[in-house]
């Protein structure tokens, strides 16, 4: 590999600015505590470090388990090319969730406590265990890529032997904790705005996680095809988009039934911030659901990408609504994240993009294309070298 001085590009400048502000925010967090680095309060104990870094982070990494089911359980081989990127996304995603937790926990060095101090009645306890175990599973699911890279055939054969129970375990763990992130909020029935509080929050979280997992896979395929200059697996992504449209429709239908049965539609007549944010969240799910049912849109890379981005933002809007907006009225206070909260969150996202780019450039993630495009990739000086998903 040739050593080059990094060129200053707009994306690199943005990346540097984000990381620098994140480092300063980290300094504030370490030396001035949560009080000096966040706008949290006794009445509003959870902010975007929980709602975005942890809850969205875990959800956005849901592509791996969905694709494992499709590729290995249902044995639909055509989806194979996107499986590895999804596993890598998920593994990085969970690592970054842990990084986010280190910021948010009051005593991060006690992160391991739930593993020895048990409370099986706690949803948080279940989430802690599932996330720990599933991160391990993801690591093992990613290991074959490393073994392949270094030609380690013996461990490769060994890990293939345990791969089926491993995959089933991973899917079960994902099912449990993706839904449990919704169950976390079941305990605040009177605090959460009724547009969001529902006894079926775990089901809603689970189904929307599957949707966003597929959307994220399309999103990162599109980005990596641009960065690594490889061909987009368009027929595959189009077929995935059709599955996505079905999952989104199912989600919206469950949502509709839920709101109807709880008789809360009339809340939408009130001119409140909750109404508008609810509308935004639903629109960002409904529009792509409708669009992706149309074949011409699925076959157009740009439109397909736009739909995936909408789903991702719709998902984020939903989690932020449940985790922050929906709890404001009930807790009798207002919460706007402090700049340092935003800086840390953006830094984590930026580092995720950068790490994915580095690992995908080094390891055989895109198996189908890595050989023919290998040479082109090493010469590439794309300007969005950092903003790669």
């Amino acid at each position: 590999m040739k050593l080059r001085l990094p060129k200053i590009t707009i994306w690199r400048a943005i990346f540097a600015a984000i990381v620098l502000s994140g480092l300063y925010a980290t300094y504030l967090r370490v030396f001035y505590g949560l009080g000096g680095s966040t706008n949290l309060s006794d009445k509003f104990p959870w902010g975007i470090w929980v709602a975005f870094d942890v809850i969205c982070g875990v959800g956005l990494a849901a592509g791996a388990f969905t694709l494992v089911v499709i590729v290995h359980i249902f044995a639909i081989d055509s989806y194979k090319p996107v499986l590895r990127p999804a596993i890598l996304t998920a593994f990085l995603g969970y690592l970054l969730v842990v990084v986010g937790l280190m910021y948010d926990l009051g005593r991060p060095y006690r992160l391991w406590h739930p593993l020895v101090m048990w409370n099986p009645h706690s949803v948080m306890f279940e989430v802690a265990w599932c996330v720990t175990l599933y991160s391990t599973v993801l690591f093992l699911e990613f290991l074959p890529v490393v073994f392949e890279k270094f030609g380690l055939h013996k461990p490769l054969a060994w890990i293939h032997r345990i791969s089926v129970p491993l995959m089933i375990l991973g899917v079960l763990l994902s099912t449990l904790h993706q839904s449990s992130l919704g169950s976390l909020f079941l305990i605040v029935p009177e605090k959460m705005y009724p547009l969001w509080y529902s006894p079926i929050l775990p089901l809603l979280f689970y189904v929307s996680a599957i949707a966003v997992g597929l959307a994220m896979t399309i999103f990162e395929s599109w980005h990596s095809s641009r960065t690594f200059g490889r061909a987009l697996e368009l027929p595959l992504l189009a077929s995935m988009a059709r599955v996505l449209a079905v999952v989104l429709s199912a989600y919206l239908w469950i949502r509709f039934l839920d709101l109807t049965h709880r008789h809360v539609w009339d809340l939408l007549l009130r001119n409140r911030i909750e109404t508008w944010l609810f509308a935004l969240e639903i629109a960002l799910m409904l529009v792509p659901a409708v669009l992706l049912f149309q074949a011409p849109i699925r076959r157009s890379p740009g439109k397909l990408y736009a739909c995936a981005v909408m789903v991702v933002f719709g998902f984020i809007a939903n989690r932020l609504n449940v985790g922050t907006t929906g709890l404001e009225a009930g807790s009798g206070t207002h919460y706007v994240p402090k700049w340092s909260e935003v800086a840390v969150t953006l830094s984590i996202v930026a580092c995720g993009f950068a790490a994915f780019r580095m690992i995908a450039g080094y390891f055989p993630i895109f198996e189908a294309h890595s050989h023919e495009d290998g040479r082109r990739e090493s010469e590439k000086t794309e300007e969005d070298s950092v903003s790669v998903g």
Partner: protein
Amino acid sequence: MPRAILYDSTICIGCKACESGCAERWGLPYNDRVAGEEYLSAHKLTAIQTHGDRFSRRLCMNCVQPACASACPVGAFQKTSLGPVVYDGSKCIGCRYCMQACPFQVPTYEWSKRLPLVRKCDMCYARQSAGKLTACAEVCPTGATKNGDRDELIAEARQRIAGKPDQYYNRIYGIKKEVGGTSVLFLSAVPFEQIGLRTNVPQEPLPETTWRVLELLPDVVSTGSVLLGGIWWITNRRAEVARKEGKRQ
């Protein structure tokens, strides 16, 4: 027998002796500035509130089935058989789920510390275990805050209402209808929301809301693993058969 605190808003004169007694018990600073704060915080675990010409008291309700104890991932909160809900700071990881879960917004956090802990009233568990009264009840000059056996306090509260029905709002806050009951009971001259108590809390104990889902976990795992394993076996078998038939031809 479980213990409790009965706070009678109609007798309280707002002298805040309970506040200073509590601060002393916890070794927290107490001065005019702190006395002026009418809300709970990490340095003030009970607060007297003024609602017009009436007073009310805020402190941990020490719920019969506490949401904080069910929410805490490391079991730092325990409901003792004596009544108090105690907190073991040496376990706490600082996830603040207890604060989110508490329907009364009682647990507070040491936001300004580098290594913070949760703070809340524990109904003087240590004192009560030793047969003493809670610090607040001991110093209360009028008997507005009374500490004793929960059943006896409920009986006494009923008697007070029956004795002077025109002076009391005809209900006791905390027996059963507030998240399944609390170990701090309230009497008032006016409906409870007028002295700042929460009347919109669910009747059922909050741990039920999450346990309903958590208890399905074995079902999800057993059904899920059989289902996934079964589907895998069928698809894999089909591929195997196809491979063998392909070889033979």
